[in-house]
C-alpha cells in the first residue's frame, strides 16, 4: 500500500490540484517556521546576553507578529482547502464509479459476493466507504507532504546554525522508520494471531446480543446473561493483549523523536558553557529541533486515517480498473423489418454454479408475441439482458436478421438499439418525478392518453391519488404499491412508439378485469407490427403468444484445465 498513490492523482483531478497546493503551502509554511525560530532567538539573545530593552528588539518583534498572522492564515487556508478537496475527490470518484459500473452492466452488478451482491458492495463504497478519504486528505496527506518540505528545510537550517546538532538529527531521523518497521515486523505474527482471537470474541458477544429477540420469544433469555459478561471480559483481556503490542511502534516513534530533541538541547547547553556556539544559534536550534520531527509524529498519529483512506481508494481503483467490454459501433437495421434470432444461448454463472439459460434457441419476429417461460432462476431475465446486449453470452449468439443480411448483436451500437426499445422490468424503480412527467403527457394527444390509461388500468389509480397525474412518486414522493407502479409502467410501455416491446410478467399484480384489458392491448401491439417479447407464467398470457420458448437451467461445475 502506497501512502500516496500517483494513480489517485491522475484519476481524480481535484486531488492533483490539492496536492500541489498543499505542497506549496508546506514550503511556505516551512519558511515561516524557520523565520519564527530565528526571530524568537533574535528577540531573546540580545535581552539575555546584552541586557537589551524592548525597543532594541522592536524589528524582530514586529517581524514575529507578522509570522504569527501569516502562519495562522496559511494553516486556516490549508484546512479549508483540505475539506474542499476531499469532498470534491469523493464526488468525482463517486461519479466515475457509478458511470463505470453502468458500463460494466447489470450482470456484473448482480453477482453475489461474501457480503451481498456487487451492487450492495458498490453502494456501501460510494456512500460510506469513500467518506474515509476525508480524514485521509484533511489529516494525513498534509502531514505526509510536510515531512517532505518542513523536515528537510528545517534540518538544512539546523546544519547551517550548528553542525553537531545537524548531525544528531541527521542520524536519528532515519532511526524512526527503521525501528518502527523493525517493531512492526517482530510483532506482526503475534498481533495477527491476537487480532483473529479478538475479532472472534467480539463477534460472539454481538452474536448473543443480536439473538436476544429470538431467545426472548422462546423464553430462554435468562441463561446467556452470564455468558455475555464472560465473553465481554475475555474480549477486553484479548484486546488489551493486542494493544500492548500494537502501541509499541507508537512508543518507539515518541521515544526516538523526543529523546533526539533532548540530546540536541543537552549538546547545545554543554557547548555553550565553553563558548563553542553562540546563544542566538543555540536558541534557534532548540526551537527548531522539535519542528523537524513534528510532521513525522503527526504522520504516525494519523496512520489510521491513512489506512482507511487508502483502502477506500484501492476499492475504488479495483472497480475503475476493470475493463469495459468493447461496445459495437455498427448501426442496427430497422427493427420493424428485422427478426431477433437467438441461437444456442448459454450463460454460465460461476458464482451460482448454474448455466441459465442453457442452450436456448428462439426467434422473435415483428408482428408476433414471443413468450419466455420457465421456473424462477431458469434464466428468463438473463435471456432478456442478452437480447439487449447487456451481457456477453458464455456461448451461442444473438443475431438481428433483416432479409438475407445478418447482424451479430455484439458488433452493433446497442445504444441505438435501445432507442427503439421499451422494457418493462419487474424490479425497476420509478424516477422521482410526477406521473405526468414520467409519462411525458405533454407529448401525447388526449385520445392516446385516455386509451393508454384505460388499457393499463392506470385510470383507476389516478382517480385514487390526491393530486391525480401531478402526484410525485418515486423516492421522496408518494409510495405506490407494486400493482400501482406496474400500471404506471404499463402505461409508459403503451404510450411508447418503440418497435421492440419487452414485458417482464406484465400482469403479475393485476386483478382479473385489468389483466384481460392488458392482454388485449399487448395482442393489438403485436398486430400493429411490433416485436413483442413477454416473460409469462400465467396461461392467460401464454394463450395469446405466437411462440412459446421454454427456458431451462442446468447445474454447472467449473472444470479447471
Amino acid at each position, binding site marked *: 500500500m502506497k501512502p500516496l498513490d500517483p494513480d489517485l492523482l491522475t484519476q481524480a483531478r481535484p486531488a492533483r490540484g490539492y496536492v500541489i497546493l498543499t505542497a506549496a503551502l508546506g514550503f511556505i509554511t516551512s519558511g515561516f517556521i524557520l523565520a519564527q525560530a530565528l526571530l524568537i532567538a533574535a528577540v531573546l539573545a540580545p535581552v539575555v546576553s546584552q541586557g537589551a530593552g524592548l525597543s532594541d528588539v522592536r524589528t524582530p518583534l514586529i517581524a514575529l507578529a507578522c509570522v504569527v498572522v501569516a502562519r495562522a492564515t496559511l494553516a486556516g487556508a490549508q484546512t479549508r482547502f483540505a475539506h474542499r478537496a476531499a469532498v470534491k475527490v469523493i464526488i468525482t470518484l463517486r461519479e466515475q464509479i457509478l458511470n463505470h459500473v453502468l458500463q460494466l452492466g447489470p450482470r456484473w452488478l448482480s453477482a453475489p459476493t461474501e457480503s451481498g451482491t456487487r451492487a450492495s458492495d458498490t453502494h456501501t463504497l460510494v456512500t460510506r466507504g469513500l467518506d474515509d478519504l476525508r480524514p485521509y486528505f484533511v489529516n494525513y496527506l498534509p502531514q505526509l507532504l510536510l515531512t517532505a518540505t518542513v523536515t528537510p528545510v528545517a534540518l538544512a537550517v539546523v546544519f547551517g546554525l550548528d553542525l553537531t546538532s545537524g548531525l544528531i538529527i541527521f542520524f536519528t531521523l532515519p532511526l524512526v522508520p527503521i525501528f518502527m518497521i523493525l517493531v512492526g515486523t517482530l510483532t506482526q505474527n503475534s498481533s495477527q494471531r491476537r487480532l483473529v482471537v479478538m475479532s472472534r470474541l467480539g463477534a460472539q458477544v454481538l*452474536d448473543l446480543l443480536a439473538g436476544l*429477540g429470538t431467545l426472548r420469544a422462546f*423464553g430462554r433469555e435468562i441463561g446467556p446473561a452470564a455468558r455475555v459478561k464472560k465473553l465481554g471480559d475475555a474480549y477486553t483481556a484479548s484486546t488489551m493483549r493486542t494493544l500492548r503490542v500494537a502501541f509499541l511502534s507508537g512508543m518507539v516513534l515518541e521515544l526516538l523523536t*523526543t529523546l533526539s530533541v533532548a540530546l540536541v538541547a543537552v549538546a547545545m547547553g554543554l557547548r555553550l558553557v565553553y563558548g563553542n556556539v553562540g546563544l542566538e544559534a543555540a536558541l534557534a536550534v532548540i526551537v527548531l529541533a522539535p519542528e523537524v520531527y513534528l510532521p513525522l509524529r503527526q504522520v504516525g498519529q494519523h496512520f489510521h486515517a491513512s489506512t482507511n483512506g487508502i483502502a477506500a481508494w484501492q476499492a475504488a481503483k479495483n472497480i475503475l480498473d476493470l475493463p469495459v467490454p468493447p461496445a459495437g459501433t455498427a448501426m442496427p437495421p430497422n427493427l420493424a423489418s428485422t427478426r431477433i434470432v437467438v441461437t444456442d444461448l448459454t450463460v454460465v454463472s460461476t458464482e451460482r454454479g448454474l448455466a441459465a439459460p442453457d442452450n436456448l434457441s428462439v426467434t422473435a419476429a415483428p408482428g408476433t408475441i414471443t413468450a419466455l417461460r420457465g421456473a424462477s432462476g431458469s434464466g428468463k431475465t438473463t435471456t432478456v439482458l442478452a437480447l439487449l446486449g447487456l451481457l456477453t453470452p458464455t456461448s451461442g449468439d444473438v443475431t438481428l436478421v433483416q432479409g438475407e443480411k445478418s447482424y451479430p448483436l455484439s458488433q452493433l451500437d446497442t445504444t441505438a438499439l435501445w432507442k427503439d426499445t421499451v422494457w418493462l422490468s419487474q424490479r425497476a424503480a420509478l424516477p422521482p418525478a410526477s406521473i405526468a412527467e414520467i409519462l411525458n403527457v405533454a407529448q401525447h394527444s388526449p385520445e392516446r392518453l385516455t386509451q393508454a390509461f384505460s388499457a393499463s388500468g392506470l385510470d383507476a389509480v389516478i382517480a385514487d391519488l390526491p393530486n391525480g397525474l401531478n402526484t410525485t412518486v418515486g423516492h421522496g414522493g408518494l409510495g405506490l404499491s407494486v400493482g400501482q407502479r406496474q400500471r404506471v409502467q404499463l402505461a409508459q410501455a403503451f404510450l411508447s412508439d418503440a418497435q421492440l416491446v419487452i414485458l417482464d410478467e406484465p400482469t403479475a399484480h393485476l386483478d382479473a378485469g385489468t389483466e384481460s384489458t392488458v392482454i388485449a392491448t399487448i395482442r393489438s401491439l403485436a398486430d400493429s407490427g411490433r416485436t413483442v417479447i413477454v416473460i409469462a407464467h400465467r396461461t392467460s398470457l401464454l394463450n395469446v403468444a405466437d411462440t412459446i420458448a421454454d427456458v431451462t437451467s442446468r447445474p454447472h461445475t467449473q472444470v479447471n484445465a
Partner: protein
Amino acid sequence: MKRHNDLRRALRLLDISAFDVIKAVTAGVLALGSAIALGAVSAWLIARASQMPPVMMLSVATVGVRAFGVSRGLFRYLERLASHVVALKGMAALRTNLYDRLSRGNITAVARITRGDLVARVGSDVDAVGDVIVKAFIPALVAVVLSAASLLVVGLLYPPAALTLLFCMLLAGVLAPWLAQKAGRESEQQTAQARADISSLSHDLLTTPGPIVVSGAAPTMMTALEGHEQDLYRATDRNARLEGLSTAIFVFALVSSALLAALVAIPATAAGTLNPVTLTVVVLMPLAVFEIHQGLPAAALQLHTSSTAASRIMALLDAADENLNHDAVDPISQTGTRHLEAHNLTVGWPQKPVLSKVNVSVSPGETLAIVGPSGSGKSTLLMTLAGLIPPHFGTVTLDGGRIGPANQHDLAQHVAFIAEDAHVFDTTIFENLRAARGNLTHDEAYDALRQAGLSQWVEALPDGLETLLGPDGTTISGGERRRLLIARALCSSASILLLDEPAEHLDPHTADTLISDLMNSAANDKKRALVIATHRLTPIHSADTIIMLSQGRIDLTGTHDDLLLQSPTYQNALAAEGTIVQ
C-alpha cells in the same frame, strides 16, 4: 441538552472505576507534562549555559532533559493502555448491562426493534459511547490539569506572563474546539438530506442498471445526482470555512503565546526585575504547552457523536423500562388444552392501530393461515397473539386466562413466535436448535430436522449436528436457513407455533414447497397448532382456516374450498400468483 443527559446516563452504565480513570489521567499528565518540562528545562539550560557557569551547575538540568526525553514516550504508552482499559471495560459493562436490562425489561422493547437495529445499538453505538473516554474525557482532563499546572509555573516565575498564556489557552483550548464542533455538527445536519438523496439515487442506479440504461434515463439520473452533489459540496464548503478558522485560531494562539510573553516580560528583564534565564523559560515554555490542546477539537466532535449514540441506546433502554401491566394478565394454568383465542382484538404499535375487530381461535391439531399484503398487520397480529406486544383493545386468552407482555416469559413455553428475521447463532446446529429448549436430545433434534426437510442435508455434513454455522448463518443457503428456523421452532416445547413469513426472500417455487411441507407435517402432528403468516395463497390450501386481511380488517375467513367457491377476491388473488412451472 437531553442528548448530553443521555450520554451521562449511558456513562453510568459503563461502571467506570475511578481508580482506572485516575491511572490513565496520571499517565497522560506525566506524558504531556514531560513534553512541557522538556521545553522549559531546555530553555533554562540554554539560557543558563550562555552565562558560562561551571558545568556542575548544569548537571541536574542535563539529566532532567534526558529523563524527560525518555519519560514522555514511556508514559504516553502507559496512558494509551490505561485509557483503553477504561474504555474496553466500560464497553463490556455497558453490553452486559444492556443484555441484562433488555432481557428482564419490557419484552415489547425487544420485539419492536429489528435485529439489524439491535446489532447497531449494541455494536457501533456502544463503541461510540466507549470512544468518548479515550478520545474526549481523558484528553480533556489531562488538558485541564496541565493547563492549570503550566499557568501556575509561569505565574510563579512572572505573573503577567501567566495572563497572556491564559488568553492563548482560552483561544486554543476553548474557542478553537467550539468552532470545530460547531462546524462538524452543522456540516452533518446540512448534508444529511443531500447524502440521503445521493444514497437512494445511487441505490436505484446500482440495483436496476439494465432498465435505466435501456430507457435512456441514465443521463437524467446522473444530472439529478450532480445536483445533490452540488448541495453536498456547498454545505461542506460553508463549514470548511469554520474548520479553517478553528485551525487558524489554534496556530495563532500557539505562536503568539511566545510573542506575547516576550512583550510583557522583556521590559521587566530590561528593568532588572526579571532574571534573563527566567525570561527565556517564560517565553519558550508556552511553545511546548499547546500540544495538550491539539486533540481538543477532535474531542469536541467525539462528544457530539457519542451523545447521539447514547441517545439511541437510552431510547431502547427507556422502552425496556416501561412498566408491564400486570393487571391485564392472569396466571398461566399448568394444565389445559392450550386453546388460544383472540376476542375483538385491535393490534398495532403505540398510537398506530393497524388491524381491528379480530376474532380468531386455534387449538392444538389445527392449522391457521393468515394472508395479506405486506403492511396489512400480519406480523403485529402474530406478536400480539404471542404476548410480545399488548393489544390496543380486546383480549388474547390461553385456556381462558388473559395473556400479554407481563406473562410472556411463562407463556413462551406454550406459545412461541418465530420472527421472519429470527437469529441464527454463531455456533453449532445443535446449539442453535437448543436455543428453543434446553433439554433437547440429539434424537429429538434429528427428528425436528427431518420434519423441516433437512435430514439429508445434515447427514451429508461431516460434523453432523456439531457443524459450526458461522456468523449469522452466512455459511448456509437462504433455503437451509429458513428450514433451520422451522426445525428450531419444532424443537420448542410450545404447543402453539406462530410463524411469521417462514419462506420470506425465497423464490416462489422453493417458498411454496417449504410452506406446504410445513402444513403437511403439522397436519400429521395432533399435539400442535400451527399459525402461519404469509403473503402467498398457493401453498396454504390445506389449512383448516384461512384468514385474509385487507384494509385493517379481516376480509375473509374460511377454508380454501369455501373461499374458492364464494369469493371472487380470493379467486383473483390466487390466480394472480400464477401457476408455477415445475
